[in-house]
């Protein structure tokens, strides 16, 4: 076991070549495989059958585009919430109601890469109303309701390439943020030579307001910034709550071979933005209106269908337009990745990805430096603060490749370290490492229960790692990515559990189950069904022809559809099955699928209405059936559609129950 692990670690070290050798020299031997006594660990993660976990954990799906939900400490898989990718399992992105969520200025996009889920906050603590998550590739932000666990809104970000520093919220969910990872020209569809990067490319920081009543987002403004790469962001807390912080890399302005060309400068920056002041400046009319095409898609009403709204302009702030400073650059070594704010709001921790230390800035020293104008030049009118004026500590010997930090609220920070594949625990008082533990293998983010809140809960920590290798039974050349659960309630970190997840578990959030579970809906009330094509009584079931479009207004209840015999459909018709599930009992779901449909099944929750679109290509008899095992007579829950030739004169009829 140990030999196998060192073999793998060694392999990874050799793979990373010179850098790995350096890592070895800096960090010494990797720490021992440390795990609590097996029986103690088993007891700590055991949740008896029928009992519930202490925490909901929401793990991003990375390149699956989704959000997965798990119970902690058991590691029970609860469900996948589909967000940015079509999901044939539920019909999300295949039903007419959900297709509009996928609309962008580039058309219908069936996939994305989702990285950073973030739960809405009140006074700096997760409040369990909504969870936001970003799409990297075609830049977007989604909002998922935490009473239905369904994606209710997706908004596109213009002027942005790779929305990675997203979707973090401010302390009271005033704003959710986005930023460009790959700077691009602002002007839509601008066709320029790539080597005009320095002249034509710009960075964009996006600020989306959140309606406190229903969570609806609105792209309030963007800040036009130098064409660096904006990597991660976090809002401040307490005294720093009016600020957000973004890391940058590629201050070298490279546009090719960034691996080398964007790693030359000893320091890049953390951008500190006073979002409250920026918002006031926009209110006072200091922004410019710029044309920009993007889509804002959201559910209209209670439970009906999503709508797509095309937007054509955005308000942008140019720092050089404005006499006063509302943002600053804090020099930070070296290509910093994460930026994380401690629970008091005072410490701004950079993940110095290529640095040999973890740099810690002080927020109060930053304010002093601003007052004293301790500037070291500027970039496009944005003052660069003097490094020594803001830095308060550098954590020595953190391992190689420190990335992300969370906090336990007891004076300690925990930083994930990628290349040496470990987690280091260090003191916010002495800035010294006090404990370290292995991660299996190559850790990206870590997450502590409420570990980004003003009041962290020092219970559990999840390590979200990038490769499984030998950790589980082998399942081929490509294996699922792991997560590891650690107990952090004591002085030393202890490994409890190691389990594979879906996609790439990039970042995660956990919230005490008690904060959410009583608000979770069991049914959609039929009385509140405001879907325009719902039938709220089975007597209303019918089929209507409108040219070549045929609308089937259908109901389902255990164990039949109404209607279940339909004739008079013709080749060339487009048929819409508007299925209302009139059940009002928790978890009694019906689905519908019809032979030959170039579509997925559609699942319909109790009280909900969903629409399956079908374009029959051939004459014949087409069975349809309930795809969700619903009752003892589920096998009987079926029907037939007769499809006749395009010029046939079979009358349109429908019936149920008379054989």
């Amino acid at each position, binding site marked *: 076991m140990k030999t196998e692990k060192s073999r793998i670690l060694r392999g990874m070290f050799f793979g990373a070549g010179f850098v790995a050798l350096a890592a070895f020299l800096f960090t010494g031997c990797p720490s021992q495989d440390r795990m609590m006594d097996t029986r103690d660990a088993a007891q700590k993660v055991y949740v008896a059958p*029928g009992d519930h976990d202490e925490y909901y954990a929401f793990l991003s799906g990375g390149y699956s585009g989704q959000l997965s939900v798990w119970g902690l400490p058991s590691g029970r898989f609860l469900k996948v919430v589909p967000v940015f990718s079509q999901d044939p399992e539920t019909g999300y992105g295949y039903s007419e109601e959900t297709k509009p969520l996928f609309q962008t200025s580039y058309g219908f996009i069936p996939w994305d890469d989702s990285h950073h889920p973030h739960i809405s906050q009140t006074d700096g603590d997760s409040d369990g109303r909504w969870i936001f998550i970003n799409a990297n590739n075609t830049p977007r932000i989604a909002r998922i309701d935490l009473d239905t666990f369904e994606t209710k809104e997706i908004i596109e970000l213009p002027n942005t390439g790779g929305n990675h520093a997203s979707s973090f919220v401010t302390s009271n969910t005033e704003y959710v943020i986005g930023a460009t990872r790959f700077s691009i020209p602002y002007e839509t569809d601008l066709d320029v030579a790539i080597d005009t990067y320095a002249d034509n490319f710009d960075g964009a920081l996006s600020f989306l307001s959140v309606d406190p009543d229903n969570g609806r987002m609105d792209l309030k403004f963007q800040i036009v910034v130098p064409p660096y790469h904006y990597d991660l962001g976090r809002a401040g807390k307490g005294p720093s709550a009016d600020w957000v912080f973004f890391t940058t890399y590629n201050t070298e302005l490279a546009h090719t071979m960034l691996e080398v060309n964007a790693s030359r400068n000893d320091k890049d920056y953390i951008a500190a933005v006073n979002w409250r002041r920026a918002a006031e400046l926009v209110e006072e009319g200091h922004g410019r209106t710029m044309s920009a095409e993007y889509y804002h898609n959201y559910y209209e009403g209670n439970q009906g269908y999503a709508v797509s709204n095309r937007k054509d302009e955005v308000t942008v702030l140019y720092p050089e337009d404005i006499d006063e400073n509302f943002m600053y650059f804090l020099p930070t070594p070296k290509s910093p990745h994460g930026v994380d704010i401690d629970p008091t709001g005072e410490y701004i921790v950079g993940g110095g990805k290529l640095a040999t230390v973890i740099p810690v800035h002080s927020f109060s020293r930053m304010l002093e430096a601003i007052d004293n104008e301790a500037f070291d030049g500027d970039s496009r009118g944005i003052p660069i603060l003097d490094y020594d004026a803001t830095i308060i500590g550098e954590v020595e010997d953190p391992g190689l490749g420190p990335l992300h930090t969370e906090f336990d609220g007891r004076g300690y920070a925990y930083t994930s370290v990628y290349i040496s594949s470990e987690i280091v625990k260090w003191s916010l008082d002495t800035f010294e490492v006090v404990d370290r533990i292995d991660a299996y293998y190559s850790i990206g983010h870590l997450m502590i229960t409420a570990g980004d809140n003003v009041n962290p809960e020092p219970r559990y920590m999840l390590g979200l790692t990038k490769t499984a290798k030998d950790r589980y039974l082998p399942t081929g050349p490509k294996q699922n990515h792991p997560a590891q659960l650690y107990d952090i309630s004591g002085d030393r970190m202890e490994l409890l559990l190691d389990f594979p997840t879906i996609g790439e578990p990039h970042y995660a959030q956990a919230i005490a189950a008690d904060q959410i579970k009583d608000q979770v809906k069991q*049914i959609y*009330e*039929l*009385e509140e069904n405001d879907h325009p094509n719902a039938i*709220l*009584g*089975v*007597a209303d079931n019918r089929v209507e022809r409108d040219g070549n479009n045929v609308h089937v207004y259908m*109901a389902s*209840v*255990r*164990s*039949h559809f*109404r209607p279940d015999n339909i004739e008079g459909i013709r080749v060339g018709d487009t048929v819409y099955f508007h299925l209302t599930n*009139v*059940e*009002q*009992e928790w978890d*009694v779901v019906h689905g519908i699928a019809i032979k030959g449909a170039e579509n997925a099944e559609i699942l319909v929750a109790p*009280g909900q209405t969903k629409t399956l679109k079908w374009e029959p290509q051939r004459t014949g008899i087409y069975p349809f059936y309930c795809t969700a095992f619903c*009752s*003892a*007579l589920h096998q009987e829950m079926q029907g037939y559609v007769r499809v006749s030739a395009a010029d046939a004169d079979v009358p349109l009829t429908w019936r149920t*129950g008379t054989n």
Partner: protein
Amino acid sequence: MQMKTILTALIATLFLVSCGNGNHDVSDDPGDSDGLTDFQLEHGIGPVTERVDLGEIDPARVEEGRSIFRMKCEACHNMEGRMVGPALGDVMESRSPEFVMNFILNPSGMTREHPEGQRLLQEYMTPMPFQNVTREEAKAIVDYLRDYAENQ
């Protein structure tokens, strides 16, 4: 000997502890059919535990009951003739209002624990679901069924 006593005590404790929970019953008034009260036998098991004074049939309540019935009951019940469940046109002639209300409000308890509910489940095979109906709404459905029985 002492060891044996401790072991016995331990095992007894284990049984006591481990069997104490996990058997959550959704019925409001659990009990097996043998132990039913006379009231329960005649008027069903559920939230309605004493006679309800319905008074005269109220036309407004009949209308309310009709619309709830259309939305939540009609998928399975005809007034005349068997469907998924039994015909309800004459149900008020054979059942008390309390029995019907308890069946609407506590269908899973009724089909599991009441002899009449068990018999109906055996006959119709599809368990009746709770359709998110309040007690007042159940009363309105009863008025609608009474009205139908008297006037059709």
